[in-house]
């Protein structure tokens, strides 16, 4: 077999069953790739011993008479936001330095129980707050893609380490989480597939909380088929998350027929932004053409409240974050600041949080505190929740009118350079302009690599589906993927 770390999940699964490779061999190939890729900053905590132990167990299971789950023996990376038993889990924050959970998040636990092999914890923006992976305590994760002769690029964020690791073949797939676009934007920047399921599909239990009404875990993979396989393994009802949906998870892979004849694809006019790069506009119309050629009907639609999505998000997400992050107080886990003589408990909180949180996290916690404070709650938070209802209604009406899925660009640009000066925090927030509506409405969304810009950098298109209909969404994405035929890989420089 060729380079085992470059296989898709489906290829590795089939090869394992034919006896052409072993979980240990797959894992060793990934561990070797990880060790030679420190320059990417994708892996924050390597777990080679644990990985080999789990790979050996997976090989035993694969030999047993009973049919092993599809993910058995597949090396995956886990975003640092997921609590993993006995392994550092610090959401890329200094405030969780040294924290080793005594429990496993439901999603990473499901993958583990299915026999997947965790090769390491992956870099991300601190507490998943960011769109460039530059707010991490571990330092930047770097995009394996580069423009010719160009500077180091961001892999996007917040799941930047996951995107970088999958695109650079450090693992076959990775988990991500998506609060405003954190799976789809990095997937688009690195030429991979990223699926954000319907809110409630994946349990949030054991995932460090950012904005609880928006957070959703999902797979980041090389192909749509892999997203179907890994997604199904991550989803399912969990009594430990009260918002987890008690609904059966279908066999998504079996739904990948590529037949989308008669499906109605909506093209929302509000997503055609002023100043949109030509390459993005062309990619979008090319994508619509591909779906049309596959037999779908392309229909212009309107989602009139789109422009209010980002401002609503930047009330709701910081408000929920300020509440969720109140637990980091230096008492039960993580970092505690050194105190001066005479300091009391208030000084302990204030110094611990000042030292432990990075600037972007502090900014969002304080904005959240402000919009929730007495006298402002109705003007900001309640108003934002109502606007959210209007944004959801836009989608409901489109779906009720017969639209099956909606096609948009994933991002307003290709990957941008790391380290550029951003004096206005709002400028960075605009990265999420096409993805954030999906979180506010709780819908499933997927980014598929479809083309490249003039500099050779990957670009993605987003498909948005009806709630709970990930299967149909994945099938449309599968048809788009097949038509686009995106097979480019970054040239290895690391």
């Amino acid at each position, binding site marked *: 077999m060729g380079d085992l770390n470059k296989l898709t999940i489906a290829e590795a699964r089939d090869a394992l069953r034919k006896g052409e490779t072993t979980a240990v061999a797959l894992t060793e190939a990934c561990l070797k790739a990880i060790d030679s890729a420190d320059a990417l900053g994708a892996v924050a905590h390597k777990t080679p011993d644990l990985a080999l132990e789990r790979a050996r167990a997976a090989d035993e299971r694969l030999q047993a008479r009973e049919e092993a789950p599809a993910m058995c023996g597949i090396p995956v990376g886990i975003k640092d936001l997921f609590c993993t038993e006995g392994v550092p889990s610090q959401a890329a924050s200094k405030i969780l330095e*040294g924290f*080793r*959970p*005594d429990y496993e998040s439901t999603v990473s636990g499901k993958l583990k129980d299915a026999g997947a092999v965790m090769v390491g914890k992956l870099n991300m923006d601190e507490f998943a707050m960011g769109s460039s992976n530059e707010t991490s305590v571990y330092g930047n994760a770097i995009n394996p893609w580069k423009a010719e002769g160009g500077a180091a690029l961001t892999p996007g964020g917040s799941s930047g380490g996951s995107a970088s690791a999958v695109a650079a073949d450090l693992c076959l797939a990775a988990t991500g989480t998506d609060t405003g676009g954190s799976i789809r934007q990095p997937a688009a920047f690195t030429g991979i597939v990223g699926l954000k399921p319907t*809110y*409630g599909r994946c349990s949030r239990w054991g995932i460090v909380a950012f904005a609880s009404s928006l957070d959703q875990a999902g797979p980041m993979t090389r192909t749509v088929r892999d997203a179907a396989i890994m997604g199904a393994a991550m989803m399912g009802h969990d*009594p430990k998350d009260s918002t987890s949906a008690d609904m059966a998870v279908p066999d998504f892979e079996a739904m990948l027929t590529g037949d989308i004849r008669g499906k109605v694809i909506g093209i929302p006019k509000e997503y055609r932004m002023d100043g949109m790069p030509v390459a993005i506009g062309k990619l979008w119309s090319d994508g619509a053409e591909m779906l049309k050629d596959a037999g779908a009907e392309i229909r212009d639609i309107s989602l009139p409240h789109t*422009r*209010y999505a*980002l*401002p*609503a998000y*930047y*009330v709701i997400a910081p408000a929920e974050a*300020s509440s969720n992050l109140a637990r980091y*107080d*230096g*008492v*039960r*886990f*993580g*970092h*505690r600041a050194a*105190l001066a003589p005479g300091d*009391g*408990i*208030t*000084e*302990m*909180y*204030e110094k611990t*949080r*000042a030292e432990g*949180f990075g600037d972007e996290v*502090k*900014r969002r*916690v*304080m*904005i959240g*505190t*402000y919009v929730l*404070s007495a006298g402002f709650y109705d*003007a*900001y938070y309640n*108003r*934002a*929740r*109502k*606007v*959210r*209802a*209007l944004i*959801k209604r836009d989608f409901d009406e489109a779906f009720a009118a017969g639209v099956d899925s909606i096609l948009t660009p994933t991002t307003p640009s290709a990957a941008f350079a790391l380290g550029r000066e951003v004096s*206005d*925090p*709002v400028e960075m927030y605009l990265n999420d302009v096409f993805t954030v509506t999906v979180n*506010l409405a*709780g819908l499933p969304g997927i980014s598929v690599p479809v083309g490249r810009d003039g500099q050779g950098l990957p670009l993605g298109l987003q498909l948005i589906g009806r*709630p*709970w209909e990930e299967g149909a969404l994945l099938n449309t994405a599968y048809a788009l993927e097949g038509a686009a035929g995106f097979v480019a890989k970054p040239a290895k420089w690391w």
Partner: protein
Amino acid sequence: MSIDIETAARVAKLARIKVEDEDLPVLAGEFNAILGFIEQLQQLDVDDVDPMTSVTPMRLKRRADVVTDGNQQAKVLANAPDAREGFFAVPKVVE
């Protein structure tokens, strides 16, 4: 709406994040940029709109009101920066 330095200091205090006095003007400026952006929400008429509560109508699950966990003192304390005699230790709370 404009956030002055005094308001920025009050918000930092409420959030229990120590901000040095010399850093307050920059922070207030950033707050104003973000709040200016959020201000667009005031353009919409939302009087007759109910706030969104869930993706699809879903009734929260109920379970029997019984103890399902416990007796894990060592595990609970294992990650504490300062644990003594089975308790979390903190600086003096009451004078």
